[in-house]
């Protein structure tokens, strides 16, 4: 598979979906730059990162799960639960952030661990287990409180307003830095560790992975734990961004994350895909939002129709290319 190349281009087939997404992204950016004044600037791209740092972190976790052939529907609710727990602990008992954030991360990972264990040990479909997890986390949010809780902690507000200046008037928020670290860490785990190889092997064929003596069960439990951790971290970043905890934050984010992963060329059946693709997928989703805000007159429903259309066009292209390369 790795040696297979596509005709004259000389690009290994496995990189093709990522390449297609990259080209699509560049094309979108060029079209936007021609259509709208002030669109073609570095800060517009950085703003996409700033506004979607939490989605990026969540999508990284989702990539791990999807690579093993599973799916995690609970991420959006875990994000909301994390914002809710941190907001309520800091507003009520006045816990300091350096206690709250680790606690939130542990809770998120714990939820993922339990879901992963149930998926593996009792052989129940991930779709259903994580759906129950989604109800559970969303329910816990409402149990904590049904109203939005503002966050006034100085550390959180500092994180929210801080600008990290790059060259030439460009800047990013600290959240982007955290998200970038997560992406780098995840790339390292997926491509340079034993766990990463097990994840690809499990997703490729669970039966073969078992016969090869790989720890399939442990791998599965680990990816759900990673996804839970990423969701909790995404929740912390979202509370930096929103400066509030609310049970209705991040409704439907699981679908955004899945869409980003799929746009990035990762197969839902598992075993094939790259984190770079997921990053590009998040950028595509973010750029669509940016274009629509530049358009100005478009209503929110055109956003949804446009996202759906783009998803369709991309998947169609992916099918066409992969069908051709197989011949």
């Amino acid at each position, binding site marked *: 598979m790795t040696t297979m190349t596509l005709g004259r281009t000389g690009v290994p087939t496995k990189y093709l979906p990522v390449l297609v997404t990259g080209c699509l992204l560049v094309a979108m950016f060029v079209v936007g730059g021609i259509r709208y004044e002030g669109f073609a600037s570095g800060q517009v791209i950085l703003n996409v990162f700033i506004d979607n740092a939490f989605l990026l972190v969540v999508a990284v976790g989702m990539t791990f799960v999807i690579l093993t052939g599973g799916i995690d529907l609970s991420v959006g609710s875990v994000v909301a639960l994390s914002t809710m727990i941190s907001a309520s602990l800091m507003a009520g008992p006045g816990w300091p952030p350096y206690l709250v954030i680790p606690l939130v991360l542990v809770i998120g990972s714990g939820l993922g661990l339990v879901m992963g264990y149930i998926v593996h040990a*009792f052989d129940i479909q991930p779709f259903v287990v994580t759906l*129950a997890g989604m109800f559970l986390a969303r329910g816990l949010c409402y149990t904590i409180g049904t109203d939005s809780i503002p966050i006034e902690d100085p550390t959180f507000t500092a994180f929210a307003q801080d600008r990290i200046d790059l060259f030439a008037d460009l800047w990013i928020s600290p959240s982007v830095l955290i998200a970038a670290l997560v992406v780098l860490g995840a790339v390292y785990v997926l491509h340079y560790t034993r766990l990463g190889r097990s994840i690809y092997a499990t997703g490729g064929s669970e039966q073969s992975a078992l016969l090869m003596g790989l720890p399939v069960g442990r791998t599965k439990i680990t990816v759900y734990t990673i996804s839970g951790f990423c969701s909790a971290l995404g929740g912390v970043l979202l509370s930096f961004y929103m400066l509030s905890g609310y049970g209705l934050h991040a409704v439907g984010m699981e679908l955004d994350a899945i869409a980003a992963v799929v746009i990035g060329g990762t197969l839902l059946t598992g075993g094939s895909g790259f984190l770079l693709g997921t990053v590009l997928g998040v950028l595509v989703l973010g750029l669509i939002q940016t274009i629509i805000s530049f358009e100005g007159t478009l209503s929110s429903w055109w956003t949804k129709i446009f996202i759906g259309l783009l998803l369709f066009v991309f998947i169609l292209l992916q099918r066409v290319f992969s069908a051709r390369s197989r011949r």
Partner: protein
Amino acid sequence: MRRLLWPAVVLALLLLVNVFTPNFFSIQVRDGHLYGTLIDILRFGAPLILVSLGMTLVIATGGIDLSVGSVVAISGALACLQISEDAGVFTAVVLALGLSLLLGAWNGFLVAGIGIQPIIATLILMVAGRGLAQLITDGQIITINSPAYKVIGGGYWLTLPFGILIVIGVLAITAFLTRQLALGMLIESVGGNAEASRLAGIRARGIIIMVYAFAALCAGVAGLMISSNVSSADGNNAGLWIELDAILAVVIGGTALSGGRFSLGGTVLGALIIQTLTTTIYSIGVPPETTLLFKALVVTAVCLIQSPSFRAKAFRRRRRAVLPGAASEERVRVTT
């Protein structure tokens, strides 16, 4: 029949919880209609049962349909828009159901024609369809005043709510088509192994497109019921997350998500379990904030009970716990 045992037990248990709720089991005749909590469960559960029936056949072919919630919204929106523009109720219903069928066929085409994974193929319509519904209603909530349209979701016929009769009708037709004719076996064979069934001479493509169209049609009827019950169409919130409830109902009813087997009776039981759970939570006075928590717990419990490996593990643990006890008893007897 053994497959229906566990869902039936769960439903019975859920109903038993309500023994102490006053008037829960009483059914009265008022104004020539049947009234009572049990009737309400059936009436409010009708859209979910319909959507789940369609979902069952889709899942039986090894697919999944995430777009039904959006189709519910689109169908309600189109019907209400037509009625608010003085079109006849019949025209409105036919147009809405026609559009639903078309959307379902589109899903089926993406899955069977182009070969996109079902979850993504239907995710496209789930996202875009919600936008489409808002486009039809122009982002507003369309309120209508049409007694004839109101009948679909809120009317009565032969003392029974009209919605229940629709469900019984659809269930009967589906059961006849799939269990009396060969169609059900064909669907199961496509879900078991699409390639093998194609080689056996089954037109898998046509069957897949048909089940998606059927699922969308069911969703369309459910959309009519929901919008007619409240006499308005809300493109944003109508049928929101009903696809998840429907998938849950199907799974609780004993149909595996991997396809190849389905149980219509189980699905109806599953949908009733979900609706009874919601009603029970209200009737025993659990605060509405914790509704989802209860739902999560019950869903987990039901899935665990149905999982063969969970039952095997729980059973083995019990036996292991019994054995040492029996052995020590033996030893005691020997020493005395």
